């Protein structure tokens, strides 16, 4: 019981941003059918944007969050318009689009160092108080961050599920042709969606960043896990992504309580690969021959 409680608390507080990031990436994946490697950089830049607003303007962390979300969303839209839309219109193949997004990821990861410098950048936040639950220590800041992530994830979920725009996004993802003949303008809807996805990624980055620092590899280091959560949970919609994200966090912290952290990550990756392998078999019906 104690073990489970520990695993859950550590897993959720440490990996809460993962859920937010995965929701953003899943939205792009479901609608544009694109695995966007450069989403890693949306996450990274989210951290940098928030850090910049926080330190340069002396704004509170919460205000920097809002600005960071908007900037990351705008960046996401820009990458869609400049790169992915062009690829779509030129009929570039699926593997090639992945490589293009890899190129974009590398480009952004290094270009941002020209702007923000080569060194890691730290946030200026008031010193936190330390709390304890079930023998697990965490800071008051981690707690607020966790609550904020939960609220944001919920808002994000409600936006997609309950609003007019969310409905258009889902309709377009469900069947693009039918959406078009129903009067949905695909470009506008797609842009709204890339903005939301970017904002989610940026906010996740800001939360990760404030927990350590904003550095160029921040998003890339977490990309693989985010991708696996999206691929495994994404087949069941946003709810699946949320569950897979939380499950991953808890599983990882449970493993880390038992075995060395690096080995825990290996076990987690192997588990994901096996799930992918088993899931792959179910998609063979799509063959057209």
């Amino acid at each position, binding site marked *: 019981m104690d073990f489970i409680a520990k695993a859950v608390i550590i897993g959720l507080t440490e990996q809460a941003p993962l859920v937010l990031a995965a929701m953003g990436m899943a939205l792009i994946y479901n609608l544009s059918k694109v695995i966007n490697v450069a989403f890693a950089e949306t996450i990274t830049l989210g951290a940098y944007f928030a850090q910049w607003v926080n330190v340069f303007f002396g704004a509170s962390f919460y205000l920097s969050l809002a600005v960071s979300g908007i900037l990351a969303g705008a960046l996401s839209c820009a990458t869609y318009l400049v790169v992915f839309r062009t690829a779509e219109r030129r009929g570039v193949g699926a593997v090639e689009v992945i490589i293009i997004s*890899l190129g974009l990821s590398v480009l952004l990861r290094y270009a941002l160092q020209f702007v923000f410098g080569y060194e890691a950048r730290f946030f200026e936040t008031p010193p936190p108080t330390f709390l304890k639950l079930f023998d697990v220590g965490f800071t008051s800041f981690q707690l607020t961050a966790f609550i904020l992530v939960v609220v944001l994830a919920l808002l994000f979920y409600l936006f997609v599920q309950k609003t007019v725009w969310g409905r258009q996004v889902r309709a377009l993802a469900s069947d693009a042709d039918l959406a078009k003949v129903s009067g949905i303008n695909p470009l506008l809807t797609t842009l709204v969606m890339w903005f939301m996805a970017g904002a989610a990624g940026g906010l996740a980055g800001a939360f990760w960043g404030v927990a350590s620092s904003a550095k160029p590899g921040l998003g890339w280091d977490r990309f693989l896990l985010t991708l696996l959560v999206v691929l495994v949970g994404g087949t069941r919609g946003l709810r699946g992504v949320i569950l897979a994200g939380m499950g991953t966090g808890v599983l990882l912290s449970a493993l880390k309580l038992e075995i060395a952290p690096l080995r825990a990550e290996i076990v987690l990756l192997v588990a994901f690969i096996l799930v992918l392998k088993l899931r792959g078999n179910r998609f063979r019906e799509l063959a057209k021959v």
Partner: protein
Amino acid sequence: MSAVWDFLFGSPAFLIFGTYTLMMIVGLGILLHLQLGVTGIGNFGVAGFWGAGLYSFGILQVHYDVGFWLALLAATAAGGVLGVVTGWVIADLDDDGVLAATLAVASIVFLAIESERGITGGRVGLGTIDFPFDVGERTDLAWLAILFGVTGVLLWYARRVHRSPYGRLLIATGTNEPLARSLRKPAKRTKVGVMALTSAGMGALGGLYGPIVHFLFPTQLTVAITVSVITALVLGGQQRPLGAFVGALLTVGLFDIVIKLYVPLPRDLLEHAFPVTKQVIFGALLIFVLLFRPLGFLGRMRRETHVKGLTRV
């Protein structure tokens, strides 16, 4: 005349090391060409297969005093086994699944090396590894000649594959797997086979890299090497055996040899701005090439003339 010689080979150690790297990228690029350009398997974990070979070789040489040939064989086998497992996993995954699985394989190799310090040395490193022979001052040049030879053999093989029924099977499997299956072709086995073969090659190249660096660190296996290989191949032309060679000259050759050694850049610039700029250019090249010239510098696979010629046999 001797001024030219001095200019070119004034710092032979750097030039030789740069050329080693170049040859590695070309070799891995040719193998990736068989995976990506021919069979359509987007392998984003090149560093993992190569690293598995490198570390198998290193561990056997350092800890168990295994001879060069046996260690090289083990490196090849390590790449091959990893290739079989990866091939089995990705055989019926779509491109997104292949991306995730290959990235995960590379990540697992990296994590395993970092975590199993007892045999890999972890971040402290593993060494030293020496050349299997010693011909005095020119040993490194001799090793370079061997690398040239190996790369040449890989290139020759890739070109022959293009002209053989096997290559056709790979292209068919890559471009339309269900159709290939309907024509009696065992698509799954073909994919596992090509992954085994090419990954074994990557493992072998990893083994050959051991003596070059003498000391192994996990940081040698980051995604940077995968990105370099992909960039070189895509830029040169992913569908052509020579693509990786041309692309590597234009990227690694230009940046890591020509500019680094022969352009007098301030030290500060060379340390920070230069590598960053290089990566920015690599990323931009990947995007532009795939958007506007998807088949790279060399263009489309040459099939027409070759088959026409054959019909007259």
